[in-house]
Structure formats: structure tokens, C-alpha cells
């Protein structure tokens, strides 16, 4: 991702040599995802996700807008990814036309928006004239690799956590109820796509990679920034828990054997499962903490049925 960060050739060589011997700098295994920390803010739809030293903040907001003319029954959904020098010196302010920025935002867009993770028809208020416009603003706070994976988790957590104000419709007249007045309603999330990025390294020379049958390219999951800078190729697989491939992007880079790529997809599925479970349990914990008096107010009792 970064262009202006240079790694000294001795460090680069050391990293590649250790990879060849099966070691990573942070003592992880090759197929180990870093621990994911999900922190919900006080407001609905305010999430900070940390993976290792990478930190991404996502904020969901909504407003009432007019739907597109050709899609009167659908609400609007935007994702904006913003990188600033805060994340690392390699990012420029206000410049998101770099190759990597475009690829990153396109992949998130395809993974979440195009795959229909958010039920946009549920955002319709009055067909053709009023609908909710949901916005996801992703801010990169600190960069240590894996932006795509982390942003995708952040956006999905944000969408699952967000509540939009309730509305009542009477003809063309609509009333938006404030959060105190009525319980806000969650968004319709149809599935949870999880992105897993693989980084490929070529331990031999280019000829062996293209012509040879060794297929001993090194394949890492969830690379750190240093590994990202030195990798020869990358593959981002997006899956959901229903065993559906939502999106795969291997935009060039080191040619890889098709079977190895399939293998990557299967590995990614295992990670998808654990991450999805983690997200749902974190959400549940947050919901419980917001509603800590529920047990007291409940009329349920512990009688044996």
C-alpha cells in the first residue's frame, strides 16, 4: 500500500529468509489471523476495530433522501473510505486516487454493497420520493497491513450495530421519531461478508514460478505492513457463513496454481466462520450491556415449565 516507505535490503532479505524457514516476525503461524478487537462506541453504529496494530474506525449515519429514479423501492447506501496521514506517512491528505486506495475501496464496495449485505429495499419509506440514505464512513487510524480485511469487519459491525430512528407514514406525511420517543430499528443485514487477504511470496526466481512445477510459493494470511510491502502478489477472498464466495480479487501479481488458490478459499472459510461468531457474540455482549436492567424488568421467572 505504501509507496514512500522503503525497507532496507538487508531487512527485506532477512524477512524473506525467515519466511523460507517458516518464521514470521511476529511469531505467528503462516495461516494465523491476528486477534480481532471490536469496540463499540456509545452511539449506535460507532465501531473501532483493531487487528494487531492496524486500527480502523467506522461510523454509520443515516439521513432521508430521494431514491434514484430507476430504483424507486430502494434506499441509498454509500461507503466512503478515507485515508489520511494519521494512518501513516505514506498516505496523502485528500488523495485517494492511488492504485491501492482505489483497489481497497473497490473491494470493500464489492464485498459489502454489491453483494447485497445490506437490505436496501428495507430502507424505502415512501416509494419513489423518500428513503433512508445510509452512509458508512471508514477512517484508517493506524496502518499495519490488512486494511481491506479490517475495514470490511468494521463496516459490517457498524451496520449490525446501527439503529435507525423509527418512522410512521401517513400518506405523504412522515414522522421521524427521536431515539427517546421510540425504540430505534436495526438495519436489515442479509449476510456477513468477511474478507481474508493472502499474501504470496516467491522463494525461487521468476522462471521457476512460471515454468516450474514446484508450487512452493509461500502464502501468508493477514500480512503486516512490512510483509505487504515485500509481497509479490495478493489475493483477497470474501466469503460468508453460507459457504458463498462473495468476491475474489487477485488483480495480477505472482501467478499461482489454481489448486492453491482453491485451497486458500477453503482456509478463508474457516477464518470466516470464527470471525462471524466473534462478531455476533461481541454484538450480543454490547446489546446486553445497553440493556442491563432487562433482567430486573422482565416478568419472566425461573419457574420450571
Amino acid at each position: 500500500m505504501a509507496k514512500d516507505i522503503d525497507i532496507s535490503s538487508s531487512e527485506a532479505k532477512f524477512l524473506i529468509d525467515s519466511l523460507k524457514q517458516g518464521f514470521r516476525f511476529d511469531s505467528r503461524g503462516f495461516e494465523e489471523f491476528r486477534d480481532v478487537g471490536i469496540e463499540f462506541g456509545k452511539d449506535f453504529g460507532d465501531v473501532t476495530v483493531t487487528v494487531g496494530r492496524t486500527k480502523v474506525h467506522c461510523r454509520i449515519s443515516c439521513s432521508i433522501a430521494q431514491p434514484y429514479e430507476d430504483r424507486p423501492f430502494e434506499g441509498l447506501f454509500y461507503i466512503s473510505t478515507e485515508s489520511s496521514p494519521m494512518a501513516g506517512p505514506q498516505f496523502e491528505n485528500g488523495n485517494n486516487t492511488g492504485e491501492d486506495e482505489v483497489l481497497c475501496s473497490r473491494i470493500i464496495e464489492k464485498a459489502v454493497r454489491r453483494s447485497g449485505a445490506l437490505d436496501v429495499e428495507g430502507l424505502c419509506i415512501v416509494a419513489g420520493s423518500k428513503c433512508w440514505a445510509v452512509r458508512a464512513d471508514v477512517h484508517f487510524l493506524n496502518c499495519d497491513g490488512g486494511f481491506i480485511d479490517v475495514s470490511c469487519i468494521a463496516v459490517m459491525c457498524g451496520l449490525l450495530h446501527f439503529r435507525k430512528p423509527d418512522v410512521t407514514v401517513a400518506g405523504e406525511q412522515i414522522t421521524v421519531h427521536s431515539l427517546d420517543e421510540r425504540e430505534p430499528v436495526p438495519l436489515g443485514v442479509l449476510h456477513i461478508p468477511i474478507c481474508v487477504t493472502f499474501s504470496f511470496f516467491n522463494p525461487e526466481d521468476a522462471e521457476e514460478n512460471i515454468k516450474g512445477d514446484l508450487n512452493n510459493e509461500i502464502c501468508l494470511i493477514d500480512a503486516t505492513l512490512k510483509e505487504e510491502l515485500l509481497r509479490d502478489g495478493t489475493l483477497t477472498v470474501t466469503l460468508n457463513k453460507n459457504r458463498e464466495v462473495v468476491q475474489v480479487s487477485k488483480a495480477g501479481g505472482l501467478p499461482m496454481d489454481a489448486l492453491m488458490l482453491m485451497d486458500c478459499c477453503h482456509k478463508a472459510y474457516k477464518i470466516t466462520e470464527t470471525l462471524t461468531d466473534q462478531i455476533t457474540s461481541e454484538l450480543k455482549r454490547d446489546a446486553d450491556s445497553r440493556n442491563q436492567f432487562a433482567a430486573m424488568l422482565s416478568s419472566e421467572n425461573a419457574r420450571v415449565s
Partner: protein
Amino acid sequence: MSRLEIYSPEGLRVDGRRWNELRRLECSINTHTSASDGSSYLEQGNNKIITLVNGPQEPKLRSQMSIQKATISVAINITRFSKMERSKTSHRNERRVLEMQTALVRTFEKNVQLHLYPRTQIDIQIHVLQQDGGLMGSLINGITLALIDAGIAMYDYISGVSVGLYDTTPLLDLNSVEESSMSSVTLGVVGKSEKLSLLLVEDKIPLDRMESVLAIGIAGSHRIRELMDRELRKHGRKRLSNVSSNN
């Protein structure tokens, strides 16, 4: 309008092909000799693509120069008349096109022997005169041909094709009607190997079907490589006979 039958029970597609048939592929190289160092014209079904390669040449900006190897730049010009309906806006700065350009640069970076041409730049210019589905695959084929025509050292051919999944049947080399009604996968295969340089899936596909989709895609790409190879050899023989008859 009645709904089109994408894949009939008899096993025929909208344009009469079977599931594993490619579209007509015609290509020629050295078509724009004065405008470029290498050029190709490719028709894959109704896709019509002109590819021009200039270079290796001195980079226009010093900052783009690399001391170790050549740099590749790809510019895609999708003309406004390329689809049935003329587009109201120019496609040039669309994020989709930027993404395609980046993907193509990264695909060919690993396949061109860039270390042979340090301090130079290879400019690839593509004009899409007409598009009818599977554009990315056709662009890859066009670039491969033009690079070969320019005499730039490459490790092998890269051939591209798209495969769709209709219910449980994989369909090879989609046209635009098919592409808009099912999920598709684009592959870029290196030579006769089973190595993928490019793999793009943009819509949902069941994980367990991926393998069969990839298999037919690789077979289709090998066939395209063969067709391109045949055309190149034909062209080579023609030029060789011109040279020998002149002496």
C-alpha cells in the same frame, strides 16, 4: 419483453453455443504499424479491441523511472459508443476503469521480463470499440498479442476468459446478456500451465462450485492461447516469406 432463456433444457445458450464453447475469436497483429511499436486487433465475439504498445521508451516523467526494471502503464479508453446504448458520460476516470488498469498492470508486471529493460517505460493503450461481455479477458488477450508484436520479452502467453455459473452449470465465455443475468469469474491463465495470474469474482458463487468453474475456465484459456498462437505463427511465417523473397 419475454424473459430470455439463458440456458435451455436442451443445453443451448442464447447465441446457440453449448456450455463449453468459446465465442468466435479472431485476432491479428501488427495492425497499426506507424502508430505504435506493437499493435493488435482482437475480436472475441462482439468485443472489438485495438491495443497499441509503445516502448520500451524513455519515461515521460523522471519520477516514473525505475533503475532496476521497466515500468508498465495501461490506459483503457472505452469509447462512448461501445455498447448498444450510447453512454452519456466518458468512462475515462471511472473507478471501475482505474481498477481494471491497475489489475492489468499488475498482471503483466510479473509476466514481462522487465529487468531486461531498466530505466524505460512500456505504454499500453487500449481502445474498446465495442464490448459484449467478458471485457477483462479480451483485454488481457489483446495486450498479450500486442506485447508479442512489439517484441517485448515475456515468460509466456497470458490468456483471459470469463466463466459464468448458471444454477449448477458453468458456462464458458459469457456475452453481455449472460453476464448480466448470472455471476461470473474472470481468469487470466499463464501459458499452458494451471497458474492463474488474475482471478476476479464479483458476484456470489457457492464455494463448492468454484472448482468446476475454474477448471472449465482454465481449459477455455488454453484454447484461446492456442488460437492466438496459431495466428501469431501464421503472421510470423508470412513475414518470414516476405523477407526471404526480398533477398
